[in-house]
């Protein structure tokens, strides 16, 4: 219970330290002492950093922002698990009561060719933005929209679209995959838009372009092991990948070309 626990933990951290993407990294042992069980994992790192700063050392760099599991900034491997041991949880939502006094904890950045390490636990995930800009949207200029209730959407479709749209783009799926595949991320966006009537017009082009962009970023192939979905803090389902494969097949077979210059 928050605020009730007086228990303090002493932990041994093995943290990946890497100055920049040009440097070699290595694991460094750092002790975390007197950590409250009520602290979040990132607050534990704040505490460690505070003591590193006092000693004149460089604090551990990690991405973080909202600290409530929705912005998708944080994320690294904790003892080999993306975002740590709890299901459906981001690192910032993980609290120290999940650990025991004396535990050793290994912290390592996401490992993927498409996510180069920037510093320590920070990686560059801008490949995800490029996948979205390759068609992960519905082309509707501001001011063109009909009345919102003019187009009813069956509740199950809306709910399923929502479930896919909750992806926070943290990259845990890629980091957990032995092939560093971005299929779960990409398929969540394809599914979100393909499940809605508004998304139908561009569905063929969308899936073709997004998959092509994904491939060109250097992500690996999907071999359906399901590690991505198991690690996903938003618990996006493997069926999204199946849906994307179906969309991709249909798009490949159905692709038609628009007439260039015809009133465009």
């Amino acid at each position, binding site marked *: *219970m928050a605020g009730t626990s007086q228990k303090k933990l002493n932990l041994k951290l093995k943290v990946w330290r890497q100055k920049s993407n040009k440097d070699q990294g290595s694991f460094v042992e750092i002790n975390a002492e007197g950590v409250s069980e*009520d602290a979040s994992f990132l607050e534990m790192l704040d505490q460690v950093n505070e003591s590193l700063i006092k000693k004149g050392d460089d604090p551990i760099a990690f991405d973080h922002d909202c600290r409530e599991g929705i912005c998708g900034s944080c994320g690294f491997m904790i003892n080999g698990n993306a975002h740590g041991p709890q299901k459906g949880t981001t690192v910032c939502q993980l609290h120290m009561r999940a650990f025991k006094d004396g535990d050793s904890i290994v912290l390592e950045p996401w490992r993927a060719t498409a996510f180069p390490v920037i510093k320590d636990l920070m990686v560059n995930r*801008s490949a995800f933005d490029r996948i979205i800009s390759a068609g992960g949207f519905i082309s509707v200029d501001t001011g063109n929209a009909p009345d919102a209730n003019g187009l009813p959407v069956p509740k199950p479709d809306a709910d399923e679209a929502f479930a896919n*749209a909750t992806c926070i783009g943290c990259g845990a799926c890629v980091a957990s995959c032995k092939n560093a595949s971005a299929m779960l991320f990409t398929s969540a966006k394809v599914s979100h838009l393909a499940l809605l009537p508004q998304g139908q017009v561009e569905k063929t082009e969308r899936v073709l372009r997004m998959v092509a962009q994904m491939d060109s970023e250097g992500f690996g192939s999907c071999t359906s092991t399901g590690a991505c979905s198991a690690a996903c803090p938003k618990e996006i389902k493997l069926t999204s990948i199946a849906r994307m494969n179906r969309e991709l097949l249909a798009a490949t077979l159905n692709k038609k070309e628009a007439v260039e210059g015809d009133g465009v």
Partner: protein
Amino acid sequence: MSQKLDSQVPSGDISEKWTKHKFNMKLVNPANKRKHTIIVVGTGLAGASAAASLGELGYNVKAFCVHESPRRAHSVAAQGGINAAKNYKNDGDSVYRLFYDTVKGGDFRAREANVHRLAEISTSIIDQCVAQGVPFAREYGGLLSNRSFGGAQVSRTFYARGQTGQQLLIGAYQAMMRQVDRKQVELFTRREMLDLVIVEGKARGIVVRNLLSGAIESYSADSVILATGGYSNVFFLSTNAMACAVTAAWRAHKKGAFFANPCFTQIHPTCIPVAGEMQSKLTLMSESLRNDGRVWVPKTAGDKRHPSQIPDNERDYYLERVYPSFGNLAPRDIASRQAKFAVDSGRGVGPTGVAVYLDFRDAINRLGKKAISERYGNLFQMYAKITGEDPYEVPMRMFPAPHYTMGGLWVDYNLMSTVPGLFVAGEANFSDHGANRLGASALMQGLADGYFVLPYTIGNYLANTKTDKLETSHDAFKGAENAVKSEISKLMNIKGNRSVDSFHKELGRTMWEYCGMSRSAEGLKKALGDISKLREEFWTNVRVPGDASYVNPELEKACRVADFLEQGELMCQDALERNESCGGHFREEYQTPDNEAKRDDENFCHVAAWEFQGVGKKAQLHKEELKFENVKLSTRSYK
């Protein structure tokens, strides 16, 4: 007074002002639009929607954010919903009612014309978002679902479970990424704006620090939009994300943009209470929970029994008791204050005694666990993760926390600041919420500004303004770059004994104690002295490790805290100057016998806009008088 504040509110009937103004504004023809560059700083709801809409129109947009991706902006964390006067529920809603509720909710300290425009635009926002594929909650018939929020007696809030902000942001982000794909928007991530560049009296560019390389970079444009959010992090502990800062707005303030009503801050009533010393932020639990949750404390002070052991007749459902017509849906400022009174009277609950209960027992009995889980599942899960308690079984413990800032850079009706060419959108401006924002109105305002206001008013500015081509080799850019570089090197070279966070926490404690939920002249004067001393110590004793030429999160924080140490002072100054209580600004000296805020319309029915005079020097006050021609000035009552 050196400068008269002209709000540029068009004449005519309130319901026709915006329509007329849109017609009267000058247009930029399509061939000329592509000759203009517009800088947008911030990619939350206001920034991303502005960047997308301006890109669609054919302007060249440069969009900047501190995050690695625009999708991480803190709008993403908004939970409960977005208001719109659709009246889909047939429960008596209308544009005028939304306008009325917002003016009243803001305790008559907002500009009527802006608020009416916001209410008018609200309906188009929902249309736009649905067309983009935002998966709002729906009924079984396929139509959109609504819920009610504080300060309103109609159901006008559209939502996507407890993740409305995320869904709207992704909609705006995708719209912007579409323009990135079309090369209308150029994206600059991991850049922090550290100065505004003014040439010949007009905002013409920005200087940023590249947070990856440490490089100080300049960008020029014909107009600059700041959509950089609020300043709740001045309190250190708030519901804001860690990177939320006043820096961009403050730097613009130091270059001449007036800062309006800085003391109008919103303390949100339902946040998870502080648990320990190392707490880094507070998590909000959506106001929508008050639709079904009942707020209570024990009737007797010091009652430490488990909540399930306290029978109904020994519980004080104080919001229902004091405000029978609005009950648990009383507006935020009022609900927060009542929670404070309950705790101050020794009836607080939980291990620290600094909390009240938000109880779902009755709603679960009435509707079943499944219905409650459908409505609030992710919020309950979030609560359980943080506290280790199951809110289906035990009532949530809640306490108010800094959440939103109604104050911000002063803007006129066109959303232009006192610096020509500098526009301010979303939470970063001051305009629409007065002294208290109603729930589900922040998302509405951010998107209104970005999708539907700026695309018109910026065009009008550009059509009326001659802007010569400007290279970043211009002296104004070089001067700003050098100032930024010397500030950074000064910070790096102090090599003192205290971490940036230790200063930030101390500032936060001072602000919370003296400029938080209740304020007094005596306390504010003490805070002014304390902050000034703390700022002095900061500049002689802060330790920023590492070097400035690569990723350095401590340096980023140091720049932000340096600004908070100046801006906190202005907040206290503003709070001290405003000798009345209104909305979120509660001065202990000005209250009614039953502890309600006592407004002073005779002397304080104005916007207080402050002009920077130098660090440590008292800013100069300018007043924009507020006129209420439609909603009659009256004592706000929710009883």
